[in-house]
């Protein structure tokens, strides 16, 4: 094992020599089998036959809940959600009270992060901006996962005309400019008068799903040619059940990666739309909006931009870490314990 320095490949101590043994099997050596009394079975190998059989997801949860990566990221996410739901608990200042008298001023008592270009309290705006940003990031990701994931999995798994049609639809959607789409969606009668967080989520989801569909399709195509799929089919499991039970769970890694990064990208994309007058109205605060509005201060007061960007980073970081932990937990080969 010395030539493999990666400690992550956690192998039970006992089987390792067997692998060795296989490699040098050409040599003639005498096989020595120690009596059981000398080397008792290690606890790892013991199977508790009285325990209820666990599903893959339950096993994942068992290993997940004790991982430090998971605990830290979960705590961070809970914090972000708390801030989003109860901003009043975290900030006393009124984020909508902006006076040019305070414009671009540094930190002062009660205003720990200073003021924006328009003279609003940066700290209060970062706190109150969490709601819109987290909602947009989270719900767009969920919508994209559902739509893109379903289409991608079906296209990749069944192939044929279904794949062709879905792939060509994604080609068209990919090529559609987001701005053009957003202009159209925003002027639909239903959205025209009440632009809200949900209009932004719908817009971003409509333009975000093709990417997820592509990635899922690729992962499913890769996974469906694996042996366990054939095994499952031979055992008489239906095609669809095989897809849900075996193919999809084994295709999750790239999907998780794209989802967690895209979460951050969607929050930033909301800023782009808002900046172009296609997103949230100015009265709804969001990190993205504040980042976009800080552009004018970039040369002279970069701190105005830094704080909402930092809040965004921490949120994205916690979701990426969560994604990593979930992926690890779902992968039986890298699961510890």
């Amino acid at each position, binding site marked *: 094992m010395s030539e493999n320095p990666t400690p992550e490949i956690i192998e039970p101590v006992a089987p390792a020599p067997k692998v060795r043994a296989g490699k040098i099997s050409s040599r003639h050596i005498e096989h020595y089998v120690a009596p059981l009394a000398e080397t008792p079975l290690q606890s790892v190998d013991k199977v508790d036959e009285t325990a209820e059989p666990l599903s893959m997801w339950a096993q994942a949860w068992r290993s997940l809940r004790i991982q430090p990566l998971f605990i830290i990221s979960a705590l961070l996410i809970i914090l972000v959600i708390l801030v989003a739901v109860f901003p009043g608990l975290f900030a006393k200042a009124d984020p909508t*009270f*902006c*006076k*040019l*008298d305070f*414009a*671009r001023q540094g930190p002062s008592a009660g205003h720990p992060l200073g003021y924006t*270009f*328009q*003279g609003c309290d940066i700290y209060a705006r970062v706190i109150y901006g969490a709601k819109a940003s987290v909602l947009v990031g989270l719900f767009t990701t969920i919508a994209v996962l559902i739509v893109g994931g379903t289409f991608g999995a079906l296209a990749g798994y069944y192939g044929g005309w279904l794949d062709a049609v879905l792939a060509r639809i994604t080609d068209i959607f990919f090529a559609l400019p987001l*701005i053009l789409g*957003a*202009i159209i969606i*925003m002027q639909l009668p239903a959205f025209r008068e009440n632009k809200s967080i949900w209009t932004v989520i719908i817009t971003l989801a409509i333009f975000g799903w093709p990417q997820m569909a592509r990635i899922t399709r690729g992962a499913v195509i890769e996974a469906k040619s694996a042996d366990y799929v054939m095994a499952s089919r031979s055992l008489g499991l239906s095609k669809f059940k095989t897809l849900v039970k075996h193919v999809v769970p084994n295709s999750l890694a790239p999907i998780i990666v794209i989802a967690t990064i895209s979460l951050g990208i969607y929050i*930033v*994309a909301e*800023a*782009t739309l808002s*900046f*172009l*007058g*296609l997103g949230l*109205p*100015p*009265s709804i605060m969001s990190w993205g909006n504040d980042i*976009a*509005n800080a*552009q*004018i*201060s*970039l*040369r*002279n007061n970069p701190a105005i931009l830094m704080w909402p960007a930092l809040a965004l980073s921490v949120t994205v970081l916690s979701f990426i870490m969560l994604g990593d932990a979930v992926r690890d937990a779902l992968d039986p080969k890298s699961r510890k314990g």
Partner: protein
Amino acid sequence: MRYNRTSKALVLSAALALTLTACGGGGGENPSASSGGDASKVITANSTEPQNGLLPANTNEVGGGRVMDLIFTGLVSYDATGKPVNELAESIETTDAQNYTIKIKAGQKFTNGEPVNAKSFVDAWNFGAAAKNAQLNSYFFESIKGYDKVSAEKSTLDKMEGLKVVDDTTFTVELSRPESDFPLRLGYTAFYPLPEAAFKDPKAFGENPAGNGPYKLAEGGWKHNVELNLVPNADYSGPRTPANGGVTFKIYNSFDAAYTDLQADNLDVLDQIPPSALQNYKTDLGDRWVNQAYAGNATMTIPSYLPEFKGEAGQLRRQAISMSIDRQQIIDNIFFGAKQVAKDFTSPVIDGYSDALPGNEVLTFNADKAKELWAQADKIDPWPADKVFTITSNIDGAGNKEYITAMANQISNTLGIKAELNPIPTFKEMRTLVGEKKLTGASRAGWQADYPSLYNFLGPLYGTGAGSNDGDYSNPAFDQKLADGLAATSVEEGNKIFNESQQILLKDLPVVPLWYQAVQGGWSNNVTDVKFGWNGVPIYNAITGK
């Protein structure tokens, strides 16, 4: 992420017409004589892609305008202070302000060899006015007799009866009514002459024009969306002789990119410092910058069709809103001193301007008075609860969002009502909202003079039914004053009447004047003698290498 300013849209959105190039140095002074610089250097300057082919009557934005003004010469041009001086005109004479006799200098020619004569002007103006040619500036000829016929829908006529060629160097113009400021307009791009070649194939000509100005387009010089190369025109003999080896206009989609190029000496002249650099450009550029007023202003239109802003209560509300805006504070904090507080509806660059019009205290910030007026209005007709005072603006151009947000905050803080920017994604949507009178609140507006006159700031904007009267304002007393001013016998008398008309506007406030525009420009270490004209455009022909 942010989509950078779209220059064209901004140029349009600022409600600019074509800007006019001032004549360098005024009169016969040759600017190249003023310094011992490198007269062979090719100057690089920022611009935007001209929106249309380079035809005088089809160029109505700065990108094409600044090129046109260098490759063409008209009857008059404006000096750095905005005073008209004769270029090709020998004389412009009238006895009744309705019939003009124009004599032009002999012996001039276009770069394709054709002579510049009376016919070149008459044909060019007829071409520009005729509806069938669909030229954007056609309305500039509306004063000329016969315009109504050539500009009628589906009209196939292309000759106005008011224009007559007398001989090679003389032509006459008959207007449909007396207009004493007609000669003042003749420096505008729409009034340039054209050679025969232009009418044979206008499209090809617009792509590769043959002009009569101090510069000409180099062979294959218009590289679309990249740059435009101008070289000196050896045949030019007017007052604007180039002091450099040519001008290359680099096309920018963002002033930020142009500013960075300027800092790296990769661009010689920049005529607009981007909003993000207004705070620091003076320290960045040392002594290589200018900040100077030009003939333009910014206003906020409150349409007359809004129910809350009608009648007596409406008038009180307009005044209250005007007095709740601390203009100086916005100028200091958003524009970093790059504007000047407005005291009237015109511009201090224009002859006849007054900063002491009776009633202009309504343009001064006064929070207490504003609250009081608002309360009075509420007694007559209460402001609907939860009604948001919106300021509509297209935001596909940079620099509008910031000041409108600041203004909305001030109004909201002073009057205790909700006020907010209503962002419109595209300029075309904004213009359509304005045109169809569907605004639901105030809207951003502004004006840049086509030609230096008080009337140009008043007539087209507030006259009943006028083309750019976005707020649908109408007041017969004001219309009468305008007509009187135009018919006045002297410029002074006319200006006096126009300023009286402004007092009516100060009461009615069809728009809330905000500030006068100023140009902030800069230049590289490689050039010298950079001056800006009355309209904020650099005097390119005078710039020389170091």
